[in-house]
Structure formats: C-alpha cells, structure tokens
C-alpha cells in the first residue's frame, strides 16, 4: 500500500528532509545488492550520477541513453499526480520557463532564471539504465516533489535510419521531442517502465539528433529511461551520445 495523498504533498518534503538529517548515501545498487545506507550527511548526487565527459559514449548494452544535460527542478504547485492528463501536460510543457527552452543545447553549469528560481544545467551520466531525477534533486538539496525537470541530449548517428521509435518510461508525466518534433507523451500517474510508450516511426538523421524531454511529478521517485528502437523493435546501439 502506498498512499499518494495530495494534501500531504508540500508538508511531505519538509518531513522527509527533517528525517534525513544524519544519514548519507553510501552505496546504491549498481548490481543487485544494496548496502543499507548509514547516513546522508554528504547529501550528494553520487553514486546516482557522475559528471559527463567528452569521451566517446554509446548507449548501454540495451540501448539506453545515459548521458544527459539535466536542469535543476522547477518548483511547481501540484496537488495530485492524478492531474497529469494529456491536456495538463501540454499546458505545462507549452509554458515558457526560460529562453529557447525548445532549442537550447546548454553547457554544464549554464544557468537560467525561472521565476524566482535560478537553476543550473548539469552535464551528467547515469550509471544505471534510468536517470534518477529524484536523486538529482535530493542530492542538490532542491525540492524533490512537485517539480518539473528538463533534459536534453545529443545522439549522433553514423547514418540516416528510418522507422526509428523513441521508447520512453517515466515516473511522472513527460513529453519527449526528437529534433524539435513532439514524439511521445506519457500522461497519467505513471511509474517508470522501460518501453512504456514509444513514438510513431521517425527518422534519425545522419549526424546530430537532439532528444529533449520534460517531466513533471508530484510525490514520487521521479526518473526516466530512454532508448531508440529500430524497425524490428531492437535497440539501436551504434550511436554516440554527446552533449553538444
């Protein structure tokens, strides 16, 4: 049983942060065994993320894209995850939060102003197949619930590939764009499931392709996983992932 109560939402963050005082993340599953966390005095995004480098990086063995530019969370007022209807997401993601939000490829540590918030982009890599946005927000001491994230990455293809599908899973509602075209919407109160929603057939350009996502969540462990599938439904792995 897990209650997602809207009324408790804003109080929840305070309760959680208060409860987290002297404990630190010592290790989180890279394999199948978790070590029980001892304390969290470090309050860090590791080991959930490592800084992105400029070294050549392919999708992982299952095609998941693990290198992303992630914007610190935008605070939202969300009373319940059940509000994430298709039209709600369109309204939220069509809202202008910062300049060029549908075209920008930021650099690490670039900052944007969203209302009263000054937010930084972080160029990061996830050791796991999924990108744990909750842990990003938590590690950076930001709001973890009732938040909206932006994510951008650049996929370089050695050739033009037709009939490609963008496959996404997300905890929270999200929308994803490939080369500026809206391709996948995950509405409703969702947990992250790989290949939960996939796009219609798309074309991957030879060279640079930009994948952009926006994810909104109330209470919950916000995260996402993204990969590209070929026309046979198999993951495309001979790509390189850069952030420029």
């Amino acid at each position, binding site marked *: *049983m*897990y*209650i*997602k*109560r809207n009324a*408790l*939402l804003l*109080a*929840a963050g305070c*309760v*959680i942060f208060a*409860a*987290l005082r002297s*404990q*630190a*993340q010592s290790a*989180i*599953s890279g394999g*199948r*065994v*978790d070590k*029980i*966390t*001892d304390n*969290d005095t470090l309050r860090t995004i590791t080991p959930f993320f490592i800084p992105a480098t400029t070294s050549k990086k392919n999708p992982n063995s299952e095609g998941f894209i693990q290198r992303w530019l992630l914007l610190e969370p935008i605070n939202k007022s969300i009373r319940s*995850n*059940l509000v994430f209807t298709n039209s709600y997401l369109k309204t939220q993601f069509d809202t202008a939060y910062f300049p060029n939000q549908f075209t920008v490829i930021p650099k690490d540590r670039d900052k944007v102003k969203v209302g009263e918030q000054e937010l930084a982009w972080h160029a990061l890599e996830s050791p796991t*197949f*999924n990108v744990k946005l909750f842990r990003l927000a938590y590690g950076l001491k930001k709001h973890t*619930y009732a938040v909206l994230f932006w994510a951008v990455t650049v996929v370089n293809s050695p050739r033009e590939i037709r009939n490609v599908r963008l496959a996404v*899973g997300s*905890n929270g509602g999200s929308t994803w764009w490939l080369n500026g075209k809206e391709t996948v919407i995950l509405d*409703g*109160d969702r*947990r*992250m*499931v*790989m*290949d*939960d929603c996939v796009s219609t057939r798309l074309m991957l350009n030879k060279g640079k392709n930009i994948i952009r996502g926006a994810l909104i969540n109330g*209470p*919950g*462990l916000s995260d996402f*996983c993204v990969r590209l599938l070929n026309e046979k439904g198999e993951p495309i792995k001979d790509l390189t992932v850069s952030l420029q």
Partner: protein
Amino acid sequence: MKLIVKISTITLFSIWLAGTAIAQVGKPFIHDPSTIVESDGKYFTFGTGGSGLMSEDGWTWNGGAVRPGGGAAPDVLKIGDRYLVVYGATGGGLAGGHNGKILAMWNKTLDPKSPDFKYSEAVVVASSDGIEDNDSIDPGLLLDPTDGRLWLSYGTYWGYIRLVELNPKTGKRVEGNKPLNIAIDCEATDLIYRDGWYYLLGTHGTCCDGPNSTYNIVVGRSRKVTGPYFDNIGREMLKGGGKLVVAAGDRLIGPGHFGRTVLEDGVEKMSCHYEADLDQSARSVLGIHPLLWKNGWPVAGDNLKEGTYEIESERRGYALQLGVDFTRMPGGMRFNRNNDEPVKPVPSQALADVVKTWPTGNIGVNLSDYMFRPHQKWTISPVAGAGGYLGGPYYKIVITGTGRALAATQDAEPITVPTFTGAPEQLWRIDQLTDGTYRIMPKEVPNSKEHLALVSSGDSTPTLATFDMNSDNSKWNLRVH
C-alpha cells in the same frame, strides 16, 4: 403498450442478471489483505491497521481475524503446524517517511477462540533507513517447496522490491543474509512457485483512491528465487516489466495485493482487494478469483456470472442435456433449392415448442452434440443464503425457462427434478480449474460423504464420480452461444 414495457423490463433485468458476477458476501471490507489461509476449519485473511476477516465457508466473510501490531499489508504462511505472520510496521506512503520495518511473529492457530491462540513477540526481519531506495513495507512470504528455504519479498514504489531469507524454524532473518533487489516500481509483492518457475507478483498503479485507484496486478518469473524476474516479453522486473494478471472489471476497481491459495491439484484461487466495489459504497473489499495458468503464466479467471450456458464435456465436446425425445424443427433438406428464392430468418426451437412433450417427473440427463435446443440450455444462478466455498456461492442449475433442476441421486447419478427446492443435492459447487475448464460438484450426494463431481463416464453418459484433474472426463466448459 404496458405489455411492451413489462417485456422490456424483464429483458433488461435478464441482461443485468446475465452480466452480474457476485462479490464475496457478508462484510468483506478489507485493505491490503494477506494470502488467505485455513486454520481450525475456517479461512482467515489479515489487512492493514489490524483489520482482518474470517469465513466459515470461504464465501461469507466478516471481521474476526485478530492480529496485534497494527501496521500495514500483512502476509501469513503456514509452516509445519504454526502460522508465520509478517507485516509492515509503517506504510505512510510517498508523502510519509520511509523508515520501514517488517516484523514477524508466530501463532499456533489463527482462530481467536482457540485456547492455543497466542502470538509470539514480533521480531524485525527487514528494515529501511528512510533514505535508501527501499521502503520496508508490504511483505510477502514463500516457503520454497524444492528445498524448504523461506523467503520474504518486500518494498513499494520507493525504490526497489527486495528479497531476504528467513529461517523457517525461527522466522528470523538468516544471519548474514543481504537483501537482493528483484524489482522496481511496484508494491505488495508475493512470491509463488510452480513447475520449476518462481513467480513474482506485484501491484502496479495507484493505491488508496477509491474508484480512481489504478491498482493492477502483474507478474514476472524466474528459474531462481533470487531472480532475475522477466515478464512474457523478456522485460526484467528490475526495469518495470510485468504481465497483467488482473485489472478492474465487474464494477470492481483496483485489484492489488495478490495471494495464492492452492486447494488441490487443479483448483487454485487468488485473493486480492479491490480498492472500490461500486455495488458496496465503493468500499475496499476482498476479492477472490479462480487462478488459471495459461502458457505458464498465472491469470485471474472469471467468477461465474449468472446466465444461460451450454454445459459442454471436455471429453468429447458433447453437451449435457435432458433425456427427452428429440423434437424436429420444421422443414427438412435445405439444399438444391432455387437460389433466387428470398431468404428469411427461421426461429430457433423454443421451450414452448417442446416442453409439453417432456415428462413431468424426474428426467435423466445424457450428453449429445449441441444444437441449441431447449433441453440443452441451462441457467446457472447463485442461491442466496445457501452458503458457498472459497470464492464462490452454491448455484442452482435449471433448464432455462423452467424450474427443472439438476440434482444428485443417492446412487451417485445426475438427474433433473421438476422443481428446485434448495435441497443440498440440488446445490452445485462450480470451480474454474487452472486450465480454464470447470469442475461441477453437488454440495451433497444423498446418503454419501463422498465429494463427487460431474464426470463423463461415456461420450454420451454423465455420472457422479471422483474428480481427476488429469482426466478430461472430469472437466466441463460453460459456453455462451
């Protein structure tokens, strides 16, 4: 006009009846139920907050199961001659804390009226610190039938579902045992074993929001209890995979918290709660379904709906019918006709066309190929107040449009009597079997203590005999035409 209104009303009522599946009766209100277990001849299930239900027959459920400790989402397992009860001490949800603890305690009986009813002191067998990617609630138990090892899965949407090993003699955590991550993005997990596979059942979707709860139960499987668990398309449950076992239906919304009860070979039940029963103030209620196995995957069967059926033998495919004279429909050969003749519908043979030719006393039954004739159509309906068995009520089985009821004779043969009286030999237990066929059993065979089932002794001859899951003679299909 009045007649039309009356007929329409009857028609609508008939349609409503035909689509009705009955939930458990009594006061089956519970949330996060444990697996149903039998103790002292009664059935028990425990829920969140110390709630619990008890049933004498498995069909009528009321409060009465007692468990100390409060907390959330217990599970219970009989090990030897004792019952191990586990529960989560917390369960505040995503908006609460995540310092969870799973506690375990023993009892010799689950019947509070028994002199042996006494719980041992609860001990912590798993925990989470509030920060890590796990919240230790929602435990599920498995005693591995292959080696006797005891396993506990637990967790919720806050990170991973984990697996730890307990000592089946003490109920305590095996010393030095480390938790394994076996799934994400689900809760209320339960492990079961069948035919060389370990199955991990989990609940996806949103809890605790009445008719808006999106709870549903999914499954993955593994050759090893420690995983990895994959769904039917090879997607790991550690990546959110899972094949649907049961979703909403029959005005029941939000199934969660799977439990499996094996009654005997081929007869299995699954329990759950529904977040909202729209026929009972949208309250959270206990649900019990037949548990079917299709291509090696568990799936919830349907609780039998009141309606008109062909009762088809799995042996040859023949239909159960009254032993009356075959009445021809008008007309004969219908080929070699002029193709330019206008065509028109021909009415089916109706009860009124034949019923006067039937004897008025007891009539035997036999089996023949189905021709949708009145003597082959059976209306099956639950009998109010007649009690039931785990997951179902006793039914009456009558020739459609009549009171002529299927009954068991003292010679252990099936027969029909002119009028249904509610006598035990006219009440029938109907269980959907694990392969989707049905077992049909009289509540009683007069002057006999044997539990017999409707069986095909020949292609055209039914009898009452011992049920054998490995024989198609013992199985029936209930077909709607």
